[in-house]
């Protein structure tokens, strides 16, 4: 791991609370990049706003730290402009499943080759602990003193139904397993979701490391077949005494960039020439 830190360590120390689940996610991303032997210059990490979205600052790749909820469109645009980049999105549950939900759904139906890592702590941590779209029912938070009344979003079921081609969930308490999910998500050609139970040790006293440890089990351990759509949906709805992590669903379909191959002509858009005078004059004929 020493060399991992050397290659991918950012210049800024993470400012997360001690014990925050996001440390493990950062670690797992670095490990995955290392295992894939990716040069930091070829990796772009795009985030939104929230505790988890500070991640690009803590790693040595290129980064774009955008506005709340809009990381996925930024990542999609960058990937289309330069498909040679490995594009990763690091966001929180509020960012991705709340304010950015529209983009999440629409990105899945397009299937761009990006890996979306959602540090899901089931609260708005940076704004001091309000309920989030994944907060459990009856959860008492600052904004819900009488308990959450909205049903939580089920991101796994939504992603499977929404057309994501790689749907997985990890846990910050198991960073080696998480790194594997991220690595395979990056290798997967298409939209990969890695939802991560990343406990907020400061503002979520309900969904703690202990709470998860009592409940989670690995899908691999029961021989789950990730190519089976119906079974994947069924597992996605398990959220009680038993909560699965691992790869729920994986399928193959063309990635978004593949539809533009006749535009790229074997070269990322960013390296294309500007139109020349002859080409311009040819189109100008239409105005007569």
């Amino acid at each position, binding site marked *: 791991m020493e060399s991992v830190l050397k290659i991918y360590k950012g210049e800024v120390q993470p400012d997360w609370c001690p014990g925050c689940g996001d440390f493990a996610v950062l670690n797992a991303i670095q490990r995955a990049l290392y295992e894939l032997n990716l040069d930091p210059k070829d990796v*772009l990490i795009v985030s939104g706003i929230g505790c988890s979205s500070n991640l690009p600052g803590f790693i040595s790749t290129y980064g774009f*730290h955008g506005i709340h909820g809009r990381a996925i469109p*930024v990542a999609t645009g960058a990937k289309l402009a330069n498909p040679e980049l490995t594009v990763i999105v690091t966001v929180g549950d509020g960012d991705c499943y709340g304010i950015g939900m529209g983009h999440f759904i629409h990105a899945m139906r397009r299937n761009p080759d990006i890996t979306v890592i959602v540090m899901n702590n089931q609260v708005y941590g940076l704004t001091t602990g309000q309920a989030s779209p994944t907060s459990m029912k009856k959860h008492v938070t600052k904004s819900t003193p009488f308990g959450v009344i909205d049903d939580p979003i089920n991101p796994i079921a939504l992603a499977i139904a929404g057309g994501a081609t790689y749907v997985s969930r990890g846990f910050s308490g198991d960073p080696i397993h998480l790194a594997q999910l991220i690595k395979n998500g990056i290798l997967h050609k298409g939209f990969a979701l890695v939802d991560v139970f990343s406990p907020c040790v400061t503002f979520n006293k309900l969904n703690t490391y202990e709470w998860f440890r009592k409940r989670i089990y690995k899908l691999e351990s029961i021989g789950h077949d990730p190519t089976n759509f119906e079974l994947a949906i069924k597992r996605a709805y398990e959220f009680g005494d038993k909560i699965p992590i691992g790869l729920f669903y994986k399928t193959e379909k063309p990635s978004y960039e593949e539809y533009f191959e006749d535009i790229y002509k074997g070269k990322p858009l960013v390296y294309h020439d500007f139109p020349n*005078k002859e080409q311009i004059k040819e189109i100008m004929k239409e105005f007569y």
Partner: protein
Amino acid sequence: MTNPIAVRFCGAAGDGIESIGSIMVRTFARSGLHVYAYRNYQSVIRGGHVWYQVRAHNKKLTSFGDYYDIMVTTNKDGIVYDSAQLREGGIIIYDANKVKFDPSEVGKKFIDLNIPLAEIAQLYSRIAAMQNVVAYGAIAYILDLDFNILKEVLEYEFGDKGREIVEQNIAAARKGYEYASEVYKNVRIKIEKGSRRRMFLNGTSAIAFGGYVAGCKFYAAYPMTPSSPILHWFAEHTKKAGMIVLQPEDEIAVINMAIGASFAGVRSMVATSGGGFALMSEAVGLAGMTETPLVIVEGQRGGPSTGLPTNTEQGDVRQVLGAGQSDYPKVVIAPRDIEELFYSTIEAFNLAEKYQIPVIIVSDLYMNESATTLENEFDIENIKIDRGWIVKEGEIKDYKRFLITENGVSPRALPGMKGYNFVAASDEHDEKGHLVSDVLAGLPYMLKIRKAIMEKRMRKEQYILKELEPPTLYGPQNADITIVSWGSTRGAVREALQILENEGIIANSLEIKYLHPFQGKEIKEILEKAKEILLVENNYSGQVGGLIAQHTGIFIKNKLLKYDGMPIMPLEIVNKAKEVLNLKSYEVIK
């Protein structure tokens, strides 16, 4: 010298009015005439009452005209709604079997050109729109147009629908031509035609083509009138132009995708109207903060809110200038005609990359949907591309993406380049891009760097101001009245100046192009010398008048403000100018 001639086609949506209008435009342009065309329509797919007005002359036109000379109407609504702008003694082409009215309903003298349009059309096609083609043939006779040009244009318009359709249209036009020549032999209007075909295009094509020429490779948009045709143009040209053209889920996705593509190094553009721009606002600031180049087109329409989706206004100045939080450097260009829309789009891309900022082009429905010919075709030989300071690999050691420099512009690296890895953040950051907004908030280092980096970004505007073309007065330096306009309103002002001059009234005009950064010093110098000033704006409150006051301390008291959804017309300006000068006005069209 002959006068301009204007033809207005009237009918219901779905009657093919727009189609015949654009056929007429092309015919005039290929006859060597200058054209200015505009239309009125409603937000309905069928029904309603629409018109398309095409004005032609042997000199450049800058307005579709206060009056028109020939009405073609396929229903009575044309008589009811459109007689007011028909010139006294003008021609009405109609089919008495279908359109029944009493001559008194027109309210003025006119030449009655009853032609059995439907009967003739039915000889060739069951499509009702063919009636317009018959009328088009009759107009060709009246104006003595070369029938070979009509044939060519119909072949161009209908060629993709097959030979049979082309022949039907040519035959219908010929029959209309012959009918007019036999029955209304002496109804002729003389117009001087030119010898060379003229290039013509509408505002949205000028913007899109400008984007293509500027090297735009990524275009995204959500449908919204009056900017959707830009999306259509790019979508149609995606392969030819080698561009990625997308229609994402909303304007927020649109602009963020474009920012992502631009961050990766590709010239990117988006276009919308006021409502879509409102959704984009936060990300416009993001482009400013992350110093990501971006070109945004805001085609204004009647507001507030959904407002008047198919009518025009210049009411979004405050929204555009106020978009996003706090202060960040940007340029706002308001091109003043269709030709300038083309050149300004290229200029916008160069400014965006040179200064690493968002550049907003403010257009409006009137200009987007007008079509015009050009005096000369676009000067492709002299197009300049300036990509600004993009670093090369290995060129810089100890790279700082947001390096504090004198003109505020920092070295830009693109993802994929070795040795320059950095984060562009919407949070405040230091020269390296490291956040100073969280753990350092309020601490001495942050206070120092925040001030320095804010000033670095904003310094760009001082340098932009130095390179923007300064505003000048059009017309005589010493005038009785100076007319102040901006954006698309210039066209009507230019024609008004001509009318005033013909009457011996000396007027000049200040036609503002850059709304931000504002050339307050130059504008103040010009306006201080004016004897009388008249502000002309297509909005309720005189938004640019407010901007002038803010930057120059000059409050313009004489204002012609129009906000009924229609563009400002030349005679309205003439009359207001006369009113200011205590002179007798023309009768104004209501």
